[in-house]
């Protein structure tokens, strides 16, 4: 009914995934696949850009939990950016800001990857 699309862009050693549409239990496998592919290529610096994402369900949030351990174990991270208020509300309610770095803009996350303190 509602489409979901994930587009991948690699900038140096950072991989950016642009999400668009509806991320729910039915479309989660597409997103999982994209994340898994990046990780299989040993690209652990990942930015997920939510700019065009309309909706995210709890199953969609679970994806991040599924990968974060492995990514961090390899000195990488998944940083989240450009969330609409509606999407951020879901993350916030569940307490994700305590576990993930969430930025307003993609460049901020990029900078963080390039110049870690």
């Amino acid at each position, binding site marked *: 009914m*509602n489409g979901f699309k994930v587009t991948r862009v690699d900038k140096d050693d950072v991989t950016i995934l642009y999400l668009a549409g*509806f991320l729910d*239990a039915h479309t989660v496998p597409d997103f999982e696949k994209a994340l898994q592919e990046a990780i299989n290529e040993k690209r652990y610096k990942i930015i997920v850009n939510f700019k065009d994402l*309309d*909706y995210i*369900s*709890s*199953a969609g*949030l*679970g*994806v991040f*939990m*599924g990968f974060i*351990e492995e990514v961090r174990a390899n000195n990488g991270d998944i940083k989240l950016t450009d969330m609409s208020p*509606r999407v951020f509300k879901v993350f916030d*309610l*569940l*307490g*994700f800001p*305590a*576990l993930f770095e969430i930025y307003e803009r993609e460049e901020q996350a990029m900078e963080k990857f390039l110049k870690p303190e």
Partner: protein
Amino acid sequence: MSGFRLQILKRHLFLLGILPIGLITFAFDYLHLKDLGYFNSLEYIHESLVAVNVVLIYFYLRRFRVFTDRHVKKNLQYLVVNLVAVYILIFILKQILKPIFIITDFPPEANRFTTILYANLVSFIASFSMVGFILSLRNLILYKYKKRTKLYLNFSVILIVITAILTVAFKEPLDLSFNGKGIYNNGVFSVALVFIFLLSTRNSWITYLTRKEKYYYLFASFLFLWGVSYLFDYAYELPVAYHSLALGVFVNATWFFLFFYSILATLSFLLQLPTARVFERKMREVASLQNLSRAISGELNADKLAKLTTELILQVTGSNYAWIELFEQDGKRLKVAAAKNLSVRDIQKLDKGILKEFDAHILRDRKPLAFNELNKDLGQKYFFGLNISLGSLVGVPILGINNQFFGILYAAKSASFGFDPDDVNLLEAFANQVAIALENAHLLQKSLERERLERELQIAREVQLRLLPQNKPHLNHYAVETLTITAYEVGGDYYDFISKSNEHLDIVIGDVSGKGTSAAFYMAETKGIIQSFAQYYHSPLEILSHTNRVLSESLEKKSFITLLVAHIDVQNHQMRFARAGHCPVLQYNAAEHKVHLLQPPGIAVGLDHGAIFDRMLEEYRIALQPGDVFLFYTDGLSEAMNKHNEEYGEERLAKVVRQNHHLPLEQLKQTIIDDVFRFTGRRELHDDLTLILLKRQT
């Protein structure tokens, strides 16, 4: 037994009519009562009696089993027996009675007793024999009923009766000469012959004979035709005409019928011989395809079906070898599913991909590939290593409806030029049947799978409903209402009341991420853990902290649970609650006439094993004033969506609560849910919805 005898007796009662009438007509001849010139009424009586006798004989004979049998071969036999018997009888009679007819005029005359006796006996034989012929021919004609058959039959009979009357009246021979008065009876007779001829074309039974039978019958029909040609002249012409002109007309007409039928049948045999082989093959093809589709409807095992198909290929196409290769589950490799006349070693070689190039060719073109002349080069290229010697080979793709590739069907012959286009077409038909069967099998598998999931879902739903409290708690000064609406797919909503005494109540509400069976089981686990921790710990913070430690160990990485635990102290009108990633508590403050969303920090259970979870979690304390209403809910309520993908949201919820806080709690609940459904525009949800209302009575 006696009934059966009586029936036979009844049948033979006809003879009581037939024999005396025969004797009476003999008396007419013997006493020369009919030769008294024109318009002799006695003669008409004579002719009528003969005609009546023919009719009686017809009714007498048609009950006999030999004439009711529709079996083609039996009827052909009876025709031959009938003909041969007539020749023998007439021959013997001729030898004994030595008849001499006077043929100066028409009808012929007879003076001697022996000749008169001869004529009468022959006429009697003719009546029986000809009626017999008609009955046998009728059975052959009706082998395949066509709509005009009855009509032609009726026309023929009527015209022959008219011919008989005219012939009796004018005493002209039926020589088709049209001289003088002969024009009347011969004219009508000619028309009758046209219909008889049309009836004689009804020999479709010939088509369905085997090739061998056609050869055999062609030879037999030549002899039969020869016998029929001379029958009339040899046996009937003079004696029957002398005895009775009416009978003469009948015998003449029947003879033409027999003659036409024999000659047309002979022609049909002759004409169908060249196509007999093709026809036979087509029949076999049809039969084999029928066999196959029958097998398919009953047999959904791909291997058995493949085996049957290879057998049929050998039978119908005369191939020496046949085998079917089907893709394995992974869809990558072809494997021989059934083979005919191939050795185990050859099958192993095929499995190893000896025909890889050939396969690839068919896979690419999706069309049959036929080699009718496998020369050495091709043999070296494709079949190197196979023990069988191949002269010609056809491979046909087995394609599903969506062009899905199931495998390849092969047929091979030792001889070159073994397969014509017809063979290839037939093999394609076989391949299609196999594809249909495989498709059916897949569909069945799918529907079984769906059924299994459906059943699982049903179980999950039952588990979920049983986990929820069956009764509302009763508290002094407080009212509690609950509402659960489950979505089609089981969501993970969960709530519970834990009451240690009348003075205290724990309200637990949560949502397990994920759906279906796994959600239901996590829910059960959560309920158990919380129930037991609630016995030891009194603060919601402690309960949640410990629950997280236990649950985060057992939860899948991707799963988490939002939980909210509220502890109500009835005596002091105090509430403490902590929120682990769950929806906030909505408070209607009666004194301020305002709605507040109470959302202390806290992350969902399962996201972290302990440290961060505990650091984030905060407990919130609030006093409960008279008239205050508290709403605990899951995101199924706040995120209920309308068709524009807008969420119901807390603001709408706050508004409806503020406007309706004064209603009895039960009505307030109904008002809220009505408002939600008004917003979504339909009464079904994509997620579970849970709502708990708590109100301190005024």
